């Protein structure tokens, strides 16, 4: 059965690395226990400490002090170049810190070509942000360099309170859940939740605040998920909300969740992407990508929100902690929400969350 082009609209190619675009590795019970124990241990400030670089502002202040200490002209034009994964706003703030420090040291920053150029460049290495200042001097230039740990970029740039991610637990169970969706329903209709549990679609309806099993649709024989590559993604068609698609490794299945039709599968080369598009018009003109930040299947995870034009490793616009690795993120019933499946590292349960983007101050 052909799939409408718009069906896959929310599975756009993400600019971000699909961190969790992988089957779940077996999580040893011991590792979970250790992760939990570690989580309980208070981590002092000295851990992961970088005593020299408290913030990027400190780093830039030190750079400015070094630049001023070098032989220099009294009038200079400041050329500020950002090649690192810093937002332009953040780079501009750092520029202001640098300029203020220079002006405090009686260096007059002017615009135009008449004055020699003081070049500041922000570069990035695998572990560091490197600030270099090339200071014009009589007969040549001098160089000052400062380094800061790259994670400071994220630590300093706390998400603003304009954008906020909020989560609401909708379901939990011991058996594995690979993906879940909360399809849009008409006003007055019963709310629905579709859960994809490895080899079957389980459809629930909400009555008086409780989810009741409505029906179960088994996947055709031969499409069972492989032991170590169990993963799948549910997708609701934009044009036909009663049609649900399941993306499996190398396969695509479809069914109508409102009737008794069987699940039909075919071979596909479509790739799954864990990032999900959120289009909340109230949150500016950006298109937002929601993705997980997970690097470890034994620890808590984080959902991050980035706008689609930001550099891939720029700080997120908003973030939300979840109690375990994120297995999948599906588009929600509206443009401003998504459904995330998380395995709680404390309980071992699989949990379904509705994650909503809030634009309130």
């Amino acid at each position, binding site marked *: 059965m052909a799939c409408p082009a718009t069906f896959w609209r929310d599975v756009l190619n993400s600019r971000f*690395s699909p961190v969790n675009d*992988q*089957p779940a*590795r077996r999580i040893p019970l011991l590792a979970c226990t250790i992760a939990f124990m570690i989580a309980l241990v208070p981590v002092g400030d000295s851990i*992961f400490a970088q005593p020299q670089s408290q913030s990027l502002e400190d780093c830039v202040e030190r750079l400015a002090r070094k630049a001023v200490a070098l032989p220099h002209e009294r009038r200079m034009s400041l050329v500020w170049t950002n090649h690192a994964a810093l937002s332009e706003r953040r780079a501009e703030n750092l520029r202001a810190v640098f300029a203020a420090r220079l002006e405090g040291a009686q260096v007059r920053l002017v615009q135009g070509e008449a004055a020699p150029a003081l070049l500041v460049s922000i570069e990035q290495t695998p572990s560091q942000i490197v600030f270099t200042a090339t200071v014009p001097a009589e007969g040549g230039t001098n160089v000052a360099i400062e380094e800061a740990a790259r994670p400071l970029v994220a630590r300093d740039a706390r998400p603003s309170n304009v954008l906020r991610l909020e989560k609401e637990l909708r379901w939990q169970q011991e058996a594995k859940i690979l993906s879940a969706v909360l399809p849009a329903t008409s006003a007055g209709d019963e709310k629905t939740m579709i859960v994809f549990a490895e080899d079957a679609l389980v459809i629930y309806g909400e009555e008086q605040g409780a989810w009741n099993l409505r029906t179960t649709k088994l996947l055709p024989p031969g499409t069972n998920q492989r032991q170590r590559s169990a993963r799948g993604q549910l997708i609701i068609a934009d044009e036909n909300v009663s049609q649900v698609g399941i993306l499996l490794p190398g396969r695509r299945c479809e069914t109508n969740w409102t009737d008794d039709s069987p699940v039909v599968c075919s*071979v596909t080369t479509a790739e799954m992407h864990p990032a999900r598009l959120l289009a909340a018009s109230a949150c500016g003109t950006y298109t937002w990508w929601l993705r997980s930040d997970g690097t470890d*299947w034994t620890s808590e995870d984080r959902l991050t929100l980035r706008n689609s034009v930001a550099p891939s490793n720029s700080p997120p616009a908003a973030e939300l902690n979840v109690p375990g690795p994120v297995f999948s993120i599906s588009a929600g019933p509206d443009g401003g929400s998504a459904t995330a499946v998380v395995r709680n590292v404390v309980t071992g349960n699989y949990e379904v969350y509705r994650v909503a983007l809030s634009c309130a101050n």
Partner: protein
Amino acid sequence: MELRASSITLNPRRWKPGSQEFATNERLAELIFDRLVTLDNYGRFQPQLATEWSRDSSAKRWQFTLRQGVKFSDGTLLAPADVVAALQPLLATGMQISATPTGVTIQSPNPASDLLEQLASGPHFVYRSDEQGNLLGTGAFVLENATSNSTFSRAEKSAADGMAPQTQHLRFRFNDLCWSGRPFVDAVDVTLGVPPQRALLDLQLGKADLAELSEDTARRAQQSNVKLWTSLPLTSYAVKFPAPPKSANDRKLREALSLSLDRNAMARVLLQKQAEAASSFLPQWLSGYAFLFDMESNLERAKELRASLTASSPGAAQPLHLMLDGNNDLSKLIAERVVVNARAAGLTLQIVSRTAARASSDATFAKAESEAQLVSWRYTSLSPREALDGFALSSRWEIPPGGVPADADARYAWEKHMMEEKNLLPLVSVPDFVALDSRVRNWSPSAWGDWHLADVWLDQGDPSTNLRDAGAKTQTGAKP
């Protein structure tokens, strides 16, 4: 998978810094050994065998807490003493590692603010030897067998102390005891010594899932729509002089040669944009300040300097010998371009193969070796200081007391000084190229060359496809 290196050794103590073999050894060692920490693509150090770490304000004393319950592949528990025994010989001179009840402490005579970068790269794996001398790790795989023409017995393997000098095939199978969970694939089969052209063909024929390519085969792969991965530029090529200039004439010769080199043309035309022009020893991605070095080409100035050379100077009346290591095609190609560039400035260079020079006479070999060499250097450390230190040591450069400075200002100044000495004329930096079969999933390497094969899985796809491929590929993927 098919790799270019013809032999490997898994014992990190035997790896030669800066060599291409180092990179292959490291990649395969990554399958069976773990590190204390790793670095992720966001610049964050991630716990591996160490779960916590801290340092004092001078960065001379570091404490690491070890993960509990980690087992070697033979089932024995990892102990702090194992970490001490493995890392002590690999740490920089003067560093002392000692066991604590919960982990290890590393004491450095100088500030070691880059210690995590060091531990997250290079040879700093944790392993131990069993009674037979086999190297055991805590990683996701274990070396199941190593074969060439005949299968090695366990005793033969142990006698080689982790080395497989004539090995052509290696098989790594999953380690069910791995603390980070079982890898997706059951095994990784490695064939060594496969020329890039054949590796690409094997990949296209479905005989391999991953193939290491060269610059020219990478271009072919791109044209054939093969899935291709390119790393950061990890290998630098340079003209190296064995000693500082002995005279003003010698200095002028090096200056003229440096100004005659058109590095951009080498990178863009000769290597068809598969490389980057290099202006310093440390590449931009590693130091963050390489752009400050200027290595512009100035043929007119080079000609002027050439005209001022004494008649007996090498490069003038008699050729300057440029020694070439081994039979690396790319080295030869670059060396030939250096000769062409130099000729445009009136300098005469003659390429001498190391093996040919050695065969002809000791005098020719000594002369060639004393003049200039075309060298390649593979970056294997995430610490710019350690990378520079390793190169300086191997080149017998004079290193300041306390080693290459860790402080970026001082390190830059020292590197600049060495560049101005013209002991080294950087040419180009070249990335790694890997071709992947379409069924390889979750390929998520670090840009600096860690392949993370434990996270890769193979898409078995349609059962009918599997039947078709059954004869061609080793079935190492996840089973239904």
